[in-house]
């Protein structure tokens, strides 16, 4: 069973979204996703200042023998990135909801949040997968 954090939001592409207030959200991949991917060896995420669009690719995560796209759950501007991931992508495996966070986005369209899944909905969605 993979973990979810109550009160956070989730996308069907297995990203989590933590609302930080003031139109800002923190984004990462879920515990389920890191488990499916296995040991991560490299992460490519946007840079501060980049614009991201909901449901479009914003980077990639690589395990030894697979590479997967990251899809942005929301649209907006990247205002903070987790620099630690460049050297230590393994923190996503060990702490997907904490140290393994990826970027902070300043939302351009906060309404998009309502289209995301709740923790309960996401848990049910993962169950089906």
């Amino acid at each position, binding site marked *: 069973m993979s973990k979810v954090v109550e009160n956070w939001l989730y996308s069907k592409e297995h990203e989590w979204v933590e609302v930080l207030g003031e139109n800002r959200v923190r984004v990462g991949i879920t515990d389920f996703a890191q488990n499916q991917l296995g040991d991560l*060896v*490299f992460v490519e995420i946007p840079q501060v200042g980049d614009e991201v669009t909901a449901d479009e690719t914003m980077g990639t995560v690589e395990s*030894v023998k697979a590479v997967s796209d990251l899809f942005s759950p929301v649209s907006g501007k990247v205002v903070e990135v987790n620099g630690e991931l460049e050297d230590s*992508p*393994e923190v996503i495996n060990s702490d997907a909801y904490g140290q393994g966070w990826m970027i902070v986005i300043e939302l351009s369209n906060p309404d998009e949040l309502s289209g995301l899944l709740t923790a309960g909905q996401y848990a049910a969605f993962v169950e089906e997968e």
Partner: protein
Amino acid sequence: MGNNKEKELIFEMSKKGRVAYSLSECDVPEVALDSVFPAEYLRQTPAELPEVSELDLMRHYTELSNRNIGIDTTFYPLGSCTMKYNPKINEDVARYAGFAKIHPYQAEETLQGALQVLYDLQTELCEITGMDEVSLQPAAGAQGEWTALMMIRAYHESRGENRTQVIVPDTAHGTNPASVAVAGLETVTISSDDQGNVNLDELRKAVGPKTAALMLTNPSTLGLFEENIVEIAKIVHEAGGMLYYDGANTNAILGITRPGDMGFDVVHLNMHKTFTGPHGGGGPGAGPIGCKKELVPFLPRPKVVKDGETYRLDYDIPQSIGRVKAYYGNFGILLRTFVYIRANGPVGLRRVSEEAVLNANYMMRKLAPYYDLAYDRVCKHEFVLSGRRQKKLGVRTLDIAKRLLDFGYHPPTIYFPLIVDECMMIEPTETESKETMDKFIDVLIEIAKEVEENPAIVQEAPHTTVVSRLDEVTAARKPVLRYRKALQEQAALQEEGSKVNEGVNV
């Protein structure tokens, strides 16, 4: 496999003052290098290449060879790779000075022997595949794929048609969609039916005015002949698409059926598989392509042609896609395969495929009681087993493969094709004797018993190789892709100071 101590790198054997070369003294009056080149162009720091004696060098590479296995070492049933015996006479011929020491740009009249080899090989591959013309230029199967797709693209464009989609079954090798992408086309994937054939309903839905081609491996990567090939050809051609033959599995059909007769318009061959070009530890190979007359105008240039009794290179092909590889293809490899075709003739080649298929069916039926068959039907030159049963007992196909190493075998191909769970693809080839196959079958049966009785011995395999399982995760996370003398010395110093070094980044 010899001792299992760490093997030093050749750089670590280096000692200033040792040499393993012998160049003649300069016999012309010398000038100062800085009178030839401005000082800023002269190399400041020499490249840190090793300094070893000739015996050191031979011992080093001999020890490396002892840490490797080839077909001459052991049975190598690596599915889809056709690891058949590599005849020694091929190697001898490739080393004749008249073939090894010739330059691609010397005058055609001084290359008549080499051009004849290429011309005759082209002609004979046309006959073997049922195609109208062959180009020997592509350096490998993947390059052949891309070349053929570029030709297909040029063909459709020449007719004013905008066809951009290439249909690829889900059993295809990952290279197919990659080749499609680098040819600027897009892949449409279709699934297979429960017999491992192309799902015809999906194919009918997938074809249309955008269809450029269907790429098909036949026999498929499951080792199964596509029974509906006639219908498939009809569907693709009626939609205006081209039918592409991925020749990875040609070893099953020599003299039995030909891509041209099955309705294929273009084909690539892996000469290092079917025709004994040695695999060389990963290359060089050769990936000629053959095509029907509609595609001939688009073949790469130059072509080798025969005018009367003279062979020459023809560059005058106005609609050619151009050149895909320098010079005329991997001549040295093509020559070896031509020697092989000569050693077999029509009778031998047919026997090759008959016996490759007989061997595969024999092994498949012998192993069927112990491992699950992915598809329970007659196979061609290879077959796919599934380790589902073993997985339930906690042993993965990877573990079984590693356990085979302890018995001195190269394992089969594993985890490909992607559509079969825990799969293991076995291709014995025709050059293996019944005794060799029987011994290997016994070992696989023994391992199946170990899985039931003592799974740990399989899970922890290999036990006898020079290294145990390697840490691929760290290799990819913190890549160390080269040796660095300075860093290495620094690391040694740090270690002396009892400080553990965390590894050297590139």
